[in-house]
């Protein structure tokens, strides 16, 4: 694989979190925390940074390997169980995201096309991206990551004259109970950032890259929610299905450029597909590590099709996707809170310098221990 740059890592982390979160979370967050919804993002971002630090420390035990590889090489049985559990987690994320993106397409862009066909087209594209492997995924990330950042950065500039700052009041009277409730919803989504140490080896991945990515994501999401409230107000935002899309619809550059939202959606959609491809890539990569003779590239299509059919079995309708968020956090907390702490406890770097100086060779570490 080619050399992985810091920019690629930061953009991949950002893209893997921002797309689905911007679509599926804001209305629930605003209905709970009202105008302080952005604080919920900050709180969950802070929690995720602590857990990311723990996982990064754990990945430094074997700097030459990523966390999946090092867990399997150190604990052949328990490591495989952990990797399979994380594969299940990413499979559920993939299933949810397929449903989110096809529902969004069905509701907003192509209302007459059947959901099954939309989802199949999405899945087929995702399979092709994932089959290209890490090189394709990182290539598309480098292309679309900056575009998404630019779009988010331009939004406040374009919409500035329509902002009604009175809608953010009362700003200083924070109901912390409701804000915590909002964090409960958003932490599972921002927790997807923990993917980074699992796919990048300790040599390439530094905590500061994860820190930058989390900062970028939390900043952009908080800005999106604040803009939602400034433009639409709390009452409308919490009743909208996709407030972020509504925000984009409100952007008008001049009088003659109608439907500016289509340009933004066209730029954002590939990022969303990339998001799904990252999940699929991780699942195939994990499967290859658990059972070495299996070819990860060849498994992309069957697993993708399985995820496609699961997308219709997991969720009965589009509203269910939103309602499930509360319970989803409970499931996700096991993977983003319990397991990282467990991994940190058993896998943190050895204090003995001799045992630390190796590039991921377990036999060397065992030798040094004797």
């Amino acid at each position, binding site marked *: 694989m080619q050399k992985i740059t810091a920019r690629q890592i930061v953009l991949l982390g950002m893209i893997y979190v921002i797309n689905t979160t911007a679509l599926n979370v804001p209305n629930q967050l605003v209905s709970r925390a009202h105008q302080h919804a952005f604080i919920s993002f900050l709180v969950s971002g802070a929690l995720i940074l602590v857990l990311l630090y723990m996982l990064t420390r754990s990945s430094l035990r074997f700097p030459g390997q990523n966390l999946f590889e090092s867990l399997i090489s150190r604990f052949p049985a328990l490591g495989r169980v952990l990797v399979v559990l994380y594969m299940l987690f990413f499979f559920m994320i993939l299933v949810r995201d397929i449903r989110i993106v096809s529902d969004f397409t069905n509701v907003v862009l192509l209302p007459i096309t059947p959901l099954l066909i939309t989802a199949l087209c999405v899945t087929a594209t995702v399979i092709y991206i994932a089959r290209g492997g890490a090189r394709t995924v990182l290539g598309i990330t480098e292309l679309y990551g900056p575009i998404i950042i630019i779009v988010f950065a331009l939004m406040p500039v374009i919409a500035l004259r329509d902002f009604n700052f009175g809608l953010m009041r009362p700003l200083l009277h924070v109901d912390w109970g409701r804000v915590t409730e909002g964090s409960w919803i958003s932490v599972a989504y921002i927790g997807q950032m923990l993917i980074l140490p699992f796919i990048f080896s300790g040599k390439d991945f530094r905590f500061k890259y994860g820190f930058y990515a989390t900062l970028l994501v939390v900043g952009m999401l908080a800005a999106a929610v604040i803009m939602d409230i400034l433009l639409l107000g709390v009452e409308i935002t919490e009743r909208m299905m996709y407030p972020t899309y509504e925000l984009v619809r409100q952007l008008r550059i001049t009088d003659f450029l109608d439907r500016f939202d289509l340009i933004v959606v066209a730029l954002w959609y590939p990022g969303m597909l990339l998001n799904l491809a990252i999940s699929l890539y991780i699942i195939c990569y994990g499967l290859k590590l658990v059972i070495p003779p299996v070819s990860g590239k*060849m498994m992309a299509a*069957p697993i993708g099709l399985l995820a496609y059919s699961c997308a*219709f079995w997991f969720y009965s309708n589009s509203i269910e996707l939103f309602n499930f968020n509360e319970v989803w956090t409970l499931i996700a907390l096991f993977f983003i809170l319990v397991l990282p702490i467990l991994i940190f406890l058993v896998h943190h770097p050895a204090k003995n310098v001799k045992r630390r100086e190796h590039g991921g060779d377990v036999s060397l570490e065992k030798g040094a221990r004797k």
Partner: protein
Amino acid sequence: MIKILIIYVIASAIILITDFKVIRDLPKINRWFTYIFLLAGMGIFAYTLQISRVVYASVWLQKWLGPLVPF
């Protein structure tokens, strides 16, 4: 229901035909995994499409885990 299921069957047939040449040379386990994933997917798809009551995974999980949610 059968008509919709044909979408899935065609999709899996395309996967099997396009990958046939590559997967032939790989270890046997690859073929088995492909068949297992495709058949499991087809089973789930057929179950979701049936006319009688379908137990959706999210609804089922909500029923069991819902009381544990603190809010």
